[in-house]
C-alpha cells in the first residue's frame, strides 16, 4: 500500500478522535438550545469553570484564597486534603447544579419572553462574569489535571498496524477514552430524553413552552435541569481538554471548535453534534494533510468553518437540524 494512503488512514482515524472531542463541547450547546432556544455563548467558559473547580476540589485549594489573604493578611492556600478523582467529580457536578440554579434564578427568570438576541447577550455577559469569577476563585495559573485517564500512544494499535502496514499508527489513549465516554454520554442522554418523565418533559418544553406550561410542566425546573446537564457535559469536556493541555483560561476557547460542528450538525440535534464533530474532525485533518503543505499549513481553524459553510449552502438548518417554517 502506498505510504501516503497509509498516512491518510492514520490521519483519518485521528480526525475521528478529534471530532469526538469537538462534539463533546458542541453537545452542551445543543442541550440548552434545544430546551430553551438560548444559544449559550458561555458553554466554553462553563467547561473551564468546571475543570477549574474539579482541580480546586481535588487538590484541596481554598477558593478565593488570594482575596482572603489580601483582605485578612492570612496565608492560607490549601485545606490539606487530596480527594479521589471520582469524589471530586461528583462534588464538581454539585457545584454545576448550583450554578445552573443560580443562572436561572438570577438571570433567565428575569428574561422570560425576551427576544433570543437578548438571551444570547445575557450568556455573553455570563461568560465574561464566569471567566473573571473563576480567575478570582481559583487563580490564573495553569493547573495539571490528572483524574487517572491514560495518555500517550496506544501500543497495541501501534504494533498491530505495524504488522499490517510496516508503519505503526499513532492513536492517543486519551482520545480512545474520550470516544468511549462520548458514546456512553450520548446513549445516556438519548435514553434520558426518551424514557424518563423528566426527559419527556424536557422534550415537551423544547417543542412548545406554552403548551408544556399548560399541562403543568415546571419551566423553571426543566431549565435548571437542562443547564445542569449542560454543566455535566461541560465538566466531561473540561476533563478531556484539561487533561490534554492543563486547566487554563484558553480552555474556554474550545467553544470556537464547537461552532462549525453546530453549524454543520444543527443546533437542535444530539446525533447531529456527534456526526458534525466527526465530519469536521476528519475533514480538517485530511485537508491539512493533503492540501496544507501546499498552501503553508495551519489550515484547520479556517477550514472547519469553510466545510460548515459548504454544508449550510445545501442544508441551512444543518444536517440534523429542524426545518423551521414560520407562517405569516
Amino acid at each position, binding site marked *: 500500500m502506498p505510504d501516503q494512503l497509509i*498516512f491518510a488512514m*492514520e*490521519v483519518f482515524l*485521528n480526525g475521528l*478522535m*478529534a471530532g469526538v472531542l469537538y462534539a463533546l463541547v458542541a453537545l452542551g450547546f445543543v442541550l440548552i438550545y434545544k430546551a430553551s432556544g438560548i444559544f449559550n455563548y458561555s458553554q466554553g467558559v462553563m467547561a473551564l469553570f468546571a475543570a477549574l473547580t474539579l482541580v480546586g476540589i481535588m487538590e484541596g485549594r481554598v477558593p478565593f*484564597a*488570594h482575596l482572603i*489573604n489580601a483582605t485578612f*493578611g492570612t496565608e492560607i*492556600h490549601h485545606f490539606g486534603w487530596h480527594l479521589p478523582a471520582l469524589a471530586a467529580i461528583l462534588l464538581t457536578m454539585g457545584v454545576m447544579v448550583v450554578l445552573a440554579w443560580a443562572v436561572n434564578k438570577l438571570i433567565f427568570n428575569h428574561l422570560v419572553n425576551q427576544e433570543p438576541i437578548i438571551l444570547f447577550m445575557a450568556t455573553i455577559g455570563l461568560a465574561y462574569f464566569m*471567566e*473573571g469569577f473563576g*480567575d478570582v476563585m481559583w*487563580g*490564573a*495559573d*495553569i*493547573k*495539571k*489535571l*490528572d483524574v487517572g485517564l491514560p*495518555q*500517550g*500512544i496506544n501500543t497495541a494499535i501501534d504494533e498491530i498496524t505495524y504488522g499490517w502496514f510496516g508503519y505503526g499508527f*499513532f492513536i*492517543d489513549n486519551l482520545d480512545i477514552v474520550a470516544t468511549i465516554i462520548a458514546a456512553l454520554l450520548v446513549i445516556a442522554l438519548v435514553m434520558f430524553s426518551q424514557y424518563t418523565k423528566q426527559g419527556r418533559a424536557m422534550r415537551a418544553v423544547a417543542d412548545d413552552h406554552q403548551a408544556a406550561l399548560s399541562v403543568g410542566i415546571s419551566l423553571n425546573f426543566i431549565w435548571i435541569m437542562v443547564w445542569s446537564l449542560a454543566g455535566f457535559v461541560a465538566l466531561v469536556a473540561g476533563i478531556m*481538554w484539561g487533561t*490534554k*493541555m*492543563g486547566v*487554563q*483560561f*484558553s*480552555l*474556554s*476557547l*474550545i467553544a470556537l*471548535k464547537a461552532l462549525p460542528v453546530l453549524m454543520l450538525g444543527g443546533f437542535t440535534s444530539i446525533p447531529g453534534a456527534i456526526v458534525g464533530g466527526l465530519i469536521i474532525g476528519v475533514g*480538517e*485533518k485530511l485537508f*491539512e*494533510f493533503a492540501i*496544507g503543505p501546499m498552501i*503553508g*499549513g*495551519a489550515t*484547520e*481553524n*479556517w477550514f472547519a468553518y469553510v466545510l460548515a459553510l459548504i454544508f449550510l449552502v445545501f442544508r441551512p438548518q444543518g444536517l440534523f437540524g429542524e426545518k423551521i417554517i414560520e407562517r405569516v
Partner: protein
Amino acid sequence: MKMKLATLALGAVMAAGPALADLVFPSMSYRTGPYAAGGIPFADGYADYFTLLNERDGGIGGEKIDMPECETAYNTEKGVECYEATKDLGSLVYQPLSTGITYQLIPKVTADGIPMLTSGLGRTSAKNGAVFPWLFNFPANYWDGASVAIKHILDEEGGDVNDKKITLVYHNSAYGKEPIRTLEELSKKHGFDLSLVPVDHPGQEQKSQWLQIRRDRPDYVIMYGWGVMNQVAIQEAVNIRFPMDKFIGIWWSGSENDVRPAGAAADGYKALTFHNLGDDYPLYDDLKTFVYDKGLAAGAGDQHGTALYNRGLYGAMLVAEAAKTAQEIHGVSAITPAMMRDGMEALEMTEEKMAALGLPAFGPEFQVTCENHGGNGFAAIGQWDAAASEWKMITDYIQSDQEIVQPLIEADSMAYAEENGITPSCD
C-alpha cells in the same frame, strides 16, 4: 452635591496619579485572559523590583518610582489604549510583553519620544539604533534565539549537522514566523534540512502537526510558541515519544507553566533563556526583607523564582540601571524620557555591576551603543528537571552567529528606513 462629587473624583485621580517628580515606569501587564499565566509572573517580577528599590534605596537617585499598571489582556487594541492613557504621566519607558502591541507602538513612541524596551521580542531589526532611535531590544532577539539553538545543536552533534533534519514548530503569527529567515540562512550554511510546521492560534489542537513530525522523524524540533500552544506541543511530543532533550523552545516556550501540565514526562525539555533561572541570588534576600515580608509583593506573591518572574525582575533591573546611567549623564535625578533614552543608549551591563546588584551572572554582559541597541546576542540553554520541578542552566551564554544575524538585521532595518523615509543616523 455635584460639586462635591466632582471634587472627590478629582482628588481620587490626583491621589492615584504619580507625583510629578516621580520616575514613572508603566507596566503593561496582562493578568487576565488566555495568556494571563504568562503575564502574571512577569508583571509581578517587574513590580517587585521597583518596590524593592523604593523600600530599600528610596527609589533611584533619590527619586521615588511610580509604576502605574495597565491591563492589556494581551490584546493589541487595549495595549495601545494603555499607552495612550499613561504616556502623559511622564512615562520614561515602556516594556510591552507582546510583539503585537510592540509593532503598534513603534510609530507612536517614535513620534512621542518615549523609549521602548522589548527584550527577546518585538521587531528584531530594532537592534539598529541608527534607524530605530527610540527602540531597544537588548540583550537578545528572536534571530539570536534561532541561531543559539542551532549552535547548541551543533555542540550536541560534534559540530556537524549536515543532512540532519530540524523542524520548526511555530505560532502562525508575525512572532512565530520571525526565526524562519534566520533558520533558512543557517540551513544553507550548515547543511541541515529545515521543515516548517505552523500552528494556528491558540494551538489547543495540534494532532496534525505532531503526526507530521512523527512521520518526518526530525532529529531536533525547535519551537516558537506562546500560551496554550506550548503546553499542548510538549504534551503531544511526549505522546509521540519524541525525545525531550532534542526539543528546544525559544524563551517564550520555557516557563514552568509550559512543562508542568505534562508532568514527569516533560523531563529533559530544553528552552533558551537570556537571563538566569531560580532564586539563589542575594537580591532575593533583599526582596524577602523589603518586599515579601512587608506584604508588598505584587499579585498573589506565589511566582518568586519562576522563569517569567525572573524575566520581569531582569527587565526592571535593566531599565533601572539605564535610569541611573541617564541621571549620571545629565546630572539630574528627575529625568525626562529623552534623557532616559540617552541612558539606555549608554547602558553597560558588566558582571561587576550585576554582582553588586545582587544578581551575579544573571544575564550576559553587553554594552549598548547607537549602532547596537540589542546587545551582543548571547543566550543560554535551560533544561527542565521534572523531579526537582525547576529549570537548570546547562550551558554558558552562547553568542549567536553574528555573520548570519547581523546582515539580516542590517537589511531589514534599512528596508524599514527606506519605506518610512528615515535617514539612518548616529550623530
